[in-house]
Structures are given as C-alpha cells and as structure tokens.
C-alpha cells in the first residue's frame, strides 16, 4: 500500500477501501466457514455454522469486494475499451470471478447439504463445500499477493 499510495490520487482511496474491506470480509468468512466445517466432526450445529459463515459473511464480502473492484477499476480507467490491463489486474479479475462462481457452487452444494442434514442424511455435500472453501482460500491468497505485489 505504501508504494501504491505514492502514485494514487485521493479520489481512488474510498473505492479502494470498499474493495479491500470487502475482500477481507470474504477471506474472513471463508476462514470461519472452512474451520467450522473442518472441525465439526459430524456435529450438525457446526456444519450449519460453517455453511452460514459462507452464506452470511463470505458471500456479502465477495459482493462488496467485486463492486469495489469495478469502482476502482473505472476510476483508474482500466475498464475503458482498448486499454491494456496489467497482469496483476488480470490475475485479480480472473480469480475474483472464478472464485465467485466456485463460492456459488459451494453454497448451492452446502445448502442442499444442510437440507439433507435436516432429513437425517449424510454430510457428503458439506464436505464438498469444505474442500471448495479451502480451494477458494488458496486462490484468494494468490489474488491478494498479485494485487499487493503487482507482478508485471
């Protein structure tokens, strides 16, 4: 952030704050969700806690992050037609969008999994949700590294 700010106009600050705060909430929701699902050991209450962490924390975080991303990109002029985008931004956009899709799939799987739990069936789908959230956490670590380190 130190170096970025040296060349960043003040008007970019608030959109960047929205983007970063959303991303932090997203990662926090994923961490909480993955941890609860991983340590639930079949306990329905913790399996549900894991699912709801993803739904009520990670998903809103993703939305705020993505809105902030579009906002700051428009301020910086990256989404104008014909403007070439740097590698770090492409990595960020790809991981954000593909990650959003994976999050959606994991939420659908988890939602069905929670319904199956109510019916007294197994937690296989919630285990799928766990695996997907761990994959997402890894992907977002790469995204954060790319956005912060800005490799060329």
């Amino acid at each position, binding site marked *: *952030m*130190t*170096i970025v*700010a*040296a060349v960043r106009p*003040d008007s970019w*600050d608030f959109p*960047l*704050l929205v983007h*970063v*705060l959303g*991303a*932090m*909430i997203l*990662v*926090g*929701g*994923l*961490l*909480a969700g993955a*941890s*609860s699902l991983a*340590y639930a050991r079949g*306990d329905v*209450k*913790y399996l549900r*806690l894991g699912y709801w*962490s993803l739904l009520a*924390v990670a998903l809103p975080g993703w939305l705020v992050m993505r809105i902030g991303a579009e906002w700051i990109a428009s301020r910086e002029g990256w989404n104008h037609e014909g403007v070439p985008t740097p590698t770090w931004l492409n990595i960020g956009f790809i991981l954000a969008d593909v990650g959003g899709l994976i999050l959606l799939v994991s939420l659908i799987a988890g939602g069905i999994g929670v319904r199956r739990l109510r019916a007294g069936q197994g937690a296989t789908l919630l285990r799928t949700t766990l695996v997907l959230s761990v994959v997402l956490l890894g992907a977002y*670590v790469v995204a*954060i*590294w790319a*956005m*912060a*380190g*800005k*490799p*060329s």
Partner: protein
Amino acid sequence: MSFVDWALAVHVLSAFAYVAGLVLFWVLIVAVRRVDTPEETLRMEPIVKVGNVAVGLGAVGTIVIGIYLAFAVDSYAIWDGWIIAALVLWAVSGALGQRTGAAYMEGMNKAKEPDAAGKTGPDQELLALNRTQTGVILHALTSLAVLLILIDMIFKPGA
C-alpha cells in the same frame, strides 16, 4: 518483483490474516451465544485456535514488515503522522484483543470443569459467561481499531 514488492505483498497478506481472524471470532461470538453445554463450548476450541493463529501471524506480519517498509521506502518515514497513528492503533488493537480473549476464555475454562467431572448438560452460568457483554464490546473496539488502521493505511492522512 523487487524485495520491497514482496515485502509489501506479505504485509498486505498479514493484514488480511489479521482481519480474517477477527471476522472468524465475530462468527464464534454470535454462535457461542446459544451454547450452554460444556461439550459444545469445548468443541469451539480448535476453531478458536485457527483464529488465534490468523490474528497472531497477521499482527506480527503487519508490524514487522510494516516497520521495514517505513524504512525501506524513500517517500515515507517512521515518524510520519499516519505511520505513528497506525503503530498506536496496532498496539491498542492488540491490547484490546488480548482482553477479548481473556473474557471468552472464562467460558471455555468453566466448560472444562464440569466436563472433566462428567457433567455435560445445560449450564446457565456457562451460558452467561459465553454471552459476555464485556467480550462483545471489547471485540467491537478491537475491530474498530483495526478498521481505523485500514482507513489510515489507505488514506494516509498528511502523507
């Protein structure tokens, strides 16, 4: 990527770990309000450990690499107002976080007593400890301090 770029990336990753840990604790704070048995309280322990590791790595990573960056980047100095503000807020958030942990550990420690004696039923005293208002207020203040650090880092007032 230069060494400073790498340091910056790890600094930001540390900040994410710190906030992710705080978010995880918010989830647990909400969840533990309905927990009145020792067994369920103790079941949270490994999740708490994940949060502790995230906050610990985040806190150390942000401060160590943050101070390094303040010296390594020519345009900033350690005595800049916004950097001093961040250091003060970091210390405040750390102190508040420790008190938050202590407030919630009362419930965890209480849960270990009857559990060891084989009593696993609902316990109103345990529920009251798990619903600690002091803990909620302290965690809200910790989160506020960290939010202020983030605002300070992005807006860099006076820089």
